[in-house]
């Protein structure tokens, strides 16, 4: 492929769109990490629940797109809360070693994935054509962008702004930011910590569902779709674990890197570039862009 300005612009838009979907996933994952200090690998499972809930609400029950999306968000949020209550809370109450939580989360991810394989089967599905815009816009100069890319970019941006407003403007948002700094002391302020953790999981699950729906639109829906979360994990690590601006920045960088590689080198090289980028950034900045250093954590 040769270098053209129109390819560049087109791939930048594609990259931002993909990056914004990663950001939805990475932010929720980072939010959980900031409170409980473990990598929640079940996050991919939440995303799959969102994707399938949306699919079945559209196809089986015939709801419109908005209602189906809302239902998917709720289903995924509740799955996240339930996962916390059933799998993590009993562990949290017995030990402060977070490695056990990480292992439990891997287990939950496998359980969710296989529940879908058993119940609805492993075949690849597509969300019905009519429910999401499929058109292509010609921006002039040979630059084309798909309507679904624009839609996912806009919706992701709206959700990220809403999250930011929630965290900075509300009483519980402030409590979550305090808990991210020091969970025990947040509890001393009279914050019901059990409720707060549930709330954080609900928000994380809800954002994962939005990501899951747009990944299903972009690619397709299958029980292992959650494995794409790896990319969001990498984005969160690049940005600095536990940092939300970091997660967004890391996601956009990753999305751009992938799409520019696909546009100018080859699609097969995408993952190679992503992982090389991770290694490179961690060599230069081990804590990521906005990572807390050891001294700040005290």
């Amino acid at each position: 492929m040769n270098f053209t300005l129109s390819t560049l612009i087109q791939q930048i838009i594609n990259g931002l769109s993909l990056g914004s979907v990663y950001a939805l996933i990475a932010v929720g994952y980072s939010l959980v990490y900031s409170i409980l200090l473990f990598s929640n690998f079940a996050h991919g499972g939440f995303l799959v629940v969102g994707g399938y809930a949306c699919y079945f609400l559209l196809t089986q029950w015939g709801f419109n797109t908005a209602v189906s999306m809302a239902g998917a968000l709720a289903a995924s949020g509740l799955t996240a809360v339930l996962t916390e209550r059933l799998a993590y809370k009993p562990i949290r109450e017995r030990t402060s070693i977070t490695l056990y939580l990480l292992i439990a989360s891997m287990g939950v991810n496998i359980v969710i994935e296989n529940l879908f394989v058993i119940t609805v089967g492993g075949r690849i599905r597509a969300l019905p054509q009519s429910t999401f815009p499929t058109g292509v816009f010609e921006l002039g100069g040979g630059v084309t962008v798909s309507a679904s890319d624009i839609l996912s970019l806009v919706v992701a941006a709206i959700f990220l702004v809403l999250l930011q407003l929630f965290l900075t403007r509300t009483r519980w948002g402030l409590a979550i930011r305090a808990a991210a700094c020091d969970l025990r002391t947040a509890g001393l302020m009279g914050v019901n910590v059990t409720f707060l953790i549930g709330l954080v999981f609900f928000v994380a699950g809800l954002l994962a569902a939005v990501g899951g729906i747009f990944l299903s639109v972009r690619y397709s829906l299958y029980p292992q779709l959650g494995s794409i979360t790896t990319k969001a994990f990498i984005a969160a690590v690049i940005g600095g674990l536990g940092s939300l601006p970091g997660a967004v920045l890391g996601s956009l960088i990753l999305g751009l890197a992938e799409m520019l590689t696909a546009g100018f080198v080859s699609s097969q090289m995408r993952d190679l570039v992503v992982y090389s980028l991770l290694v490179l950034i961690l060599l230069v900045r081990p804590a990521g862009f906005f990572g807390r250093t050891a001294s700040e954590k005290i």
Partner: protein
Amino acid sequence: MAGTGRILLEAQDICVNYGAIAALSGFSLKLMEGEIVAVIGANGAGKSTFMNALMGMVKLAGGTILLDSYPLTGRTWKAVQGGLSLVPEGRRVFAPLTVEENLRIGAFTRKDAGDIQEDYDWVFSLFPRLKERLTQYAGTLSGGEQQMLAIARALMARPRVLLLDEPSLGLAPIVIRDIFKELRRINEQGVSILLVEQNAKQALLLSHRAYVLQTGRLLKEGNSRELLQDPDIRAAYLGQGA
């Protein structure tokens, strides 16, 4: 302000274990309304454990905690709603949040917006320096300012009992004097105070009554002025003339 004779907070035979270690073995304490009570003891005596037990931050192996003669449930947020507010050991201000946000989270359990404004004014009258630093990140404050913020943050819950875990720790003597002076003022304005300290002299000078804690057990209790004169206490806890 001296005690009114009504028991506000009572701990009966508190036992706390960490695995095989017994941190508290049957410690009891009473705090009257309006009183300042100190618990003094060496490092590792169980002072922080006792504070955490009162706040429901550690599980009791035995004993009861009564607030207004009703047992506390062991849930921290209920203890805060009931009127207990702890300034934890090491201050633990929320470093990445601003001074204003730290105060706001201190008022988390409150629903009365109008009164909260009054309490901002109250804590600023106690610690005027916080008002100047309102938009600054708490992590950028000096140690003394962080202690003031931690106390102000606890007061924003409008507690009936202010609990303080070693407020003098790591501070210069002149800063300690300032802070203890404000604690007296806070008490005079009607807040009962329960203080644990290694700095026995300051704690005994401030408090009305005191308990001496040694490896999880009561060693002695009594009037603070008398304990200051007690030869055993002088030898063991006031030795360095602190």
